[in-house]
């Protein structure tokens, strides 16, 4: 097998594993929607229809992110990276996550350290990746015993390698070794991130795949007493010159 064939095979294997992870993860919203419909019938309670709609939307968002990751992967080096304002994107993601408060009670905080120009990214891909990470962390947080009000913090900060965007929470159990192992396990193990969540965390692997198409990738990071995931982006050279 040549190096090129091996590389192609590796990409195909990763795509299959990501698809299996997505399919497994999709069982969760479908079970919720189906059981909620049955409960609504049992209790003769039509107010639960809104919940079914919300659950279906969450599932659809995940599928859309997956499709976007495939499209960006297929585009390869032709992915159109643009100058994107990271603070505006984080602000937007924070607002979108805030809307999920009807199901989960969290404090969503935004912390942007310093001032800097835009980064090079795919706007929709970046938004989808950050949303998916946020949702998995929110799920993980909701599975823990509540000792104090849970926090999800979105941050941007300058690092020696570029500008880092991160999403952090009070959930423990996420470290670099666990995350590296989970990258090998997703698509085959039921709980590749078992220290983080009972679900299979497909959202994180889809986010990772999206970020890789933007020449970035996820890594475990810490922010004060919070732990989470971050990705570093190159600053937009074009606007630096301006």
């Amino acid at each position: 097998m040549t190096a090129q064939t091996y590389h192609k095979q590796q990409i195909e294997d990763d795509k299959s594993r990501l698809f299996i992870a997505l399919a497994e993860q999709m069982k969760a919203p479908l079970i919720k929607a189906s059981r909620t419909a049955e409960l609504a019938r049992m209790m003769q309670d039509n107010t639960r229809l809104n919940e079914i709609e919300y659950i279906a939307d969450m599932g659809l968002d995940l599928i859309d992110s997956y499709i976007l990751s495939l499209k960006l992967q297929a585009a390869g080096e032709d992915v159109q990276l643009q100058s994107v304002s990271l603070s505006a994107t984080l602000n937007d993601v924070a607002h979108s996550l805030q809307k999920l408060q009807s199901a989960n009670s969290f404090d969503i905080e935004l912390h942007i350290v310093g001032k800097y120009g835009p980064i090079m990214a795919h706007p929709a891909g970046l938004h989808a990746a950050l949303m998916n990470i946020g949702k998995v962390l929110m799920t993980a947080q909701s599975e823990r015993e509540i000792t104090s009000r849970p926090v999800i913090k979105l941050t941007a900060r300058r690092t020696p390698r570029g500008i880092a965007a991160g999403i952090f929470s009070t959930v423990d159990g996420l470290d670099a070794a666990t995350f590296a192992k989970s990258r090998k396990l997703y698509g085959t193990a039921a709980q590749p991130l078992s220290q983080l969540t009972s679900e299979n965390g497909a959202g994180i692997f889809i986010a990772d795949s999206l970020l890789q198409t933007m020449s970035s990738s996820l890594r475990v990071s810490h922010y004060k007493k919070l732990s989470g995931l971050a990705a570093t982006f190159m600053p937009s050279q074009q606007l630096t010159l301006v």
Partner: protein
Amino acid sequence: MNRILLVEPDQYLAEVYSSALQHNGHIVSVARTVSQSVNLLDAEQFDLMILELKIAQHNGIELLYEMRSYVDWNKIRIIIHSSVPEQKMMTSKTMAQLDVDKYLFKPRTTLSELCQSVEQIMSRQYS
């Protein structure tokens, strides 16, 4: 009326399942983690436990072994209600060893089937 411990990490599903079980006349306590389950088992009396095996940080099977090692908790009937298929997680020998009454595959089990299984197991217990 049975006292049920529902071990379900998903907050939303826990609410749906406990509502259905309560609607069918049972008293339900919910635990989302293994440590919460052990605390509840210590503090209250239960007739039956409905257990999801996929729990963050711990495996539900660990909880089962823990439970079966205590005489006080041996009489509690157990339904595994998991999104992991039975053949992936347990052999019939392990089921018998751990005295598991029923294994229900969550994606294929309706609320009515879950409630029926509870009735069947508990009526067997008291017959």
